[in-house]
């Protein structure tokens, strides 16, 4: 860049670039020092002045989500949602149509069937995207990891959740049980595991958004785990390795075919925390208390829904 032989002192200022955005109040960071002097000049490059047309070819956003892929997936998944699981929602209006909120649900089925149901349901009913936080184990899987990312999944890092919730006002779905939820056996169904260390509460507090608990009924029966084989899990490096009823029924296909359990989802009242957002840390006891309370709410809602369920298949 920059031939300089002919760039004498008489060089017109128009070829010089301002390094400073004049809209930004640089004075403030300069502690009142005058910043009027021309900044270090630098040879202009040959960049076209007219607004260049968009170079982008895909619509993958900064989180890895692609709306095109997502809508294709919705088209494919819709029959499953409507006719296989026959999903019914209760209290969907409690999910805001704009602004950030952290959706928290119970997690079940050996290959979790609840995340796609929740994401599909909210995206089709409310027409707004849902970003699902998952264990970063997902990211290490070829194909699956990439698909998951394009369909709105991302690694469950607190920074990701904070940025989505506080700065972009998005809906974020998280399963605080983590892999302990889908790893549990059929006889432990609808018994919520520990809610991690309450990290999701802290994120919601920091981001100043409500937590919206969702109780999901049906996922447990869609792919029940009969036994776990920890030796295989260790060998292939997965968090758990289940033998599911689906495997017995459908053979190898059982890894991807669910039983047509009737899905019912109940959205509980949003939980707001009256704390100052943006703090570095929140009281541990308060966080654990709130986390426990939300866990109890979901557990109670599940018991209530199960009391009213006549059939696993027909609701």
């Amino acid at each position, binding site marked *: 860049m920059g031939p*300089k032989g002919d760039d004498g002192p008489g060089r017109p200022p128009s070829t010089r670039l301002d390094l400073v955005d004049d809209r930004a109040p640089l004075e403030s960071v300069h502690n009142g020092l005058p910043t009027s002097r021309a900044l270090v000049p630098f040879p202009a490059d040959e960049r076209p002045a007219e607004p260049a047309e968009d170079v982008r070819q895909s619509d993958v956003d900064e989180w890895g989500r692609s709306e095109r892929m997502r809508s294709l997936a919705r088209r494919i998944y819709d029959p499953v949602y409507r006719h296989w699981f026959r999903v019914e929602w209760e209290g969907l209006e409690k999910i805001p149509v704009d602004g950030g909120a952290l959706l928290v649900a119970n997690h079940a089925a050996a290959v979790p069937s609840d995340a796609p149901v929740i994401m599909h349901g909210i995206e089709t009913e409310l027409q707004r995207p849902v970003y699902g936080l998952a264990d970063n184990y997902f990211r290490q899987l070829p194909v699956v990891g990439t698909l998951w990312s394009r369909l709105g999944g991302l690694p469950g890092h607190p920074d990701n959740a904070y940025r989505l919730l506080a700065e972009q006002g998005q809906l974020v779905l998280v399963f605080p049980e983590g892999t302990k939820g889908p790893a549990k056996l059929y006889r432990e169904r609808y018994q919520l595991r520990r809610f991690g260390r309450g990290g999701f509460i802290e994120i919601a507090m920091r981001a100043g958004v409500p937590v919206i608990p969702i109780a999901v009924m049906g996922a447990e029966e869609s792919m029940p785990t009969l036994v776990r084989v920890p030796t295989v899990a260790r060998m292939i490096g997965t968090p758990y390795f289940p033998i599911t009823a689906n495997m017995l029924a459908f053979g190898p296909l059982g890894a991807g075919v669910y039983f047509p359990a009737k899905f019912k989802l109940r959205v509980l009242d949003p939980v707001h925390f009256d704390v100052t957002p943006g703090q570095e840390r929140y009281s541990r006891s308060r966080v654990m208390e709130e986390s426990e309370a939300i866990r109890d709410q979901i557990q109670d809602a599940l018991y209530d829904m199960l009391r009213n369920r006549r059939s696993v298949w027909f609701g």
Partner: protein
Amino acid sequence: MVREPSRRILVTGLGTFWGGRVAQALEQDPDIEVIVGLDTTEPTVELERTEYVRVDANYSILARIVRAARIDTIIHTFLIVDPTQMSQRAMHEINVIGTMNLFAAASSPGSTVRNVIVKSSTMVYGCAPEDPVFFAEDTARSRRAVTPVERSLEAVEGYVRDFAEDNPHVNVCLLRFANVIGEEIETPLTRALGLPVVPSLLGFDPRFQFVHEHDVVRSLLFTLESGLPGVYNVAGDGMLPWSEVAAICGKRTVALPPMGTAWLVAPLARVGLVDLPDEYLQLLRFGRGVDNRRLKQLGFRYQYDSAEAVRAYVEAVRLRRTVGDHSPSYRYERDVEQFFRHSPAVIRE
């Protein structure tokens, strides 16, 4: 703190891509009185008034130069981030020992140094499945650094921190650059994109963030001008999936098996087909994004986002393909340079 503007500047790595370009840009500011450039090799770009001093890789005479030329500002660009360039040992000498000696000289008693700008890389964040989508300047890396480049950069940043702590009167600014792309620079990524088919990992399509080479120089000058201490990520807006980067370049990707990739690539590197060091293979798996807002908040304006930087690269490639590489070849001739700078026969304004 009232800051004296930089007048007498020392640039390390004058013979490198960045050192030469920074010196060229500095030369155009008449307020800058002295530019001294250090390197082990001769400058590769034409310079008008920069004084080139040949030094050994670990700057043993640096303290004398700083004192003799009353250097007030050091721009440390001589950090190797491309492990294919040289042996591990040579890189360690340049990155770690060089930086150590540089800071030892800058903090010697009576040192006139008041500003230090270091050009580091977002490689210090590493690349792991546990990573956040955006690394902020104070986010810790997820896994321990294992590759030599990352470890040496970590050591360098440690020296920078120590120096800043021990010398509160010095403005220390550390810039971490994302993958650089543009018209001229050659990196393992541009070499990969230059292949007939672009290597990728089967089943992985991570997102990449780029910064254009002009924005790199501009950001160095911006921090020099504004004199702001601190750590800043420098990366264009937006992130592109690797497949899209290849598509913008008009290339197809060829998928390498995701298991045992390093093992497979090693013989290909030996015959010069693919040269992707471990850091880059890992990037092809998980990618890396950084939060670039801190520098923007100070008023820095990027000219290129990630996609535009890739476009600038591919346009330059197309041009070169048609008209050939016509960048002026320059050879440093000591006597000639000395004549223009110091001979009484030359009339200087």
